[in-house]
């Protein structure tokens, strides 16, 4: 087994275990910490796939941005009250069975089609230009040439999200 493989299985195990912890912990703060572990190990998996730029974006945007936002909101609203409530809804058994059906379906499909995923000529990421030029340069070139219009639309989406979040979270004044 190469280093890449060992790292992948370690990161995958950490990701799955901490993802299970995210949805089973009673305390929301613990869930957020476990989510940080999941996101960081997913960033590690991106590194084993030679997607260095995406790994950096994952750490900066997800862990440094979204997760900190989550923790801020958790700290703003009271945690103590929710710990003593029941954590799972009434229909949890139905949801669990539906999810089990989903994963068995996914695993079955991927397992049946695993041979068709193998390429005719092996063009792994090491031989491809991804490894030589530098991942950031390739992603940047693609993002600002072929995908320029989606990129601008994504910026508009972010602007709309900022305006929407401010409008939703703004406290009403007494003026009305």
């Amino acid at each position, binding site marked *: 087994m190469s280093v890449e493989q060992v790292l992948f299985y370690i990161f995958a195990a950490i990701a799955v275990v901490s993802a299970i912890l995210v949805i089973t912990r009673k305390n929301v703060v613990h869930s957020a910490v476990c989510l940080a572990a999941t996101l960081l190990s997913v960033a590690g*998996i991106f590194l084993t796939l030679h997607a260095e730029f995406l790994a950096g974006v994952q750490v900066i945007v997800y862990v440094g941005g979204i997760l900190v936002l989550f923790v801020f909101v958790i700290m703003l609203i009271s945690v103590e009250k929710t710990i003593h409530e029941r954590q*799972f809804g009434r229909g949890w058994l139905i949801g669990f069975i539906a999810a*089990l059906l*989903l994963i068995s379906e996914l695993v079955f499909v991927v397992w049946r089609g695993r041979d068709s995923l193998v390429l005719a000529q092996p063009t792994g990421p090491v031989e491809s230009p991804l490894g030589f030029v530098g991942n950031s340069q390739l992603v940047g070139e693609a993002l600002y040439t072929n995908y320029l219009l989606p990129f601008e639309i994504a910026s508009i989406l972010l602007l709309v999200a900022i305006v929407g979040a401010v409008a939703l979270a703004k406290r009403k004044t007494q003026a009305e």
Partner: protein
Amino acid sequence: MVPIHHFLFLGAALFTIGVIGVLTRKNIMVILMSIELMMNAVNINLIAFSAHLGQTAGQIFAIFVITVAAAEAAVGLGIVIAMFRNKETMNINEIDLMKW
């Protein structure tokens, strides 16, 4: 070299854990976190195929998925704050104004 269907299995596992979280938990913060988990599962699949095929398109899509996740988190947390101000709860069973 890890075979690609192992990445797909990992993505399926993370996605299913996210689905279980959304369907069974009552705390709205945990539900939002589960949605982030599902988006991460999608990103793993996209980048695994990008590396497998030697193309950058999957990584570009993953960047857009991360953008949408950031926008979704911002709006979702805004909704949570507005909701908590009105009802003082994080339990989704108590937010039933539009339920029949």
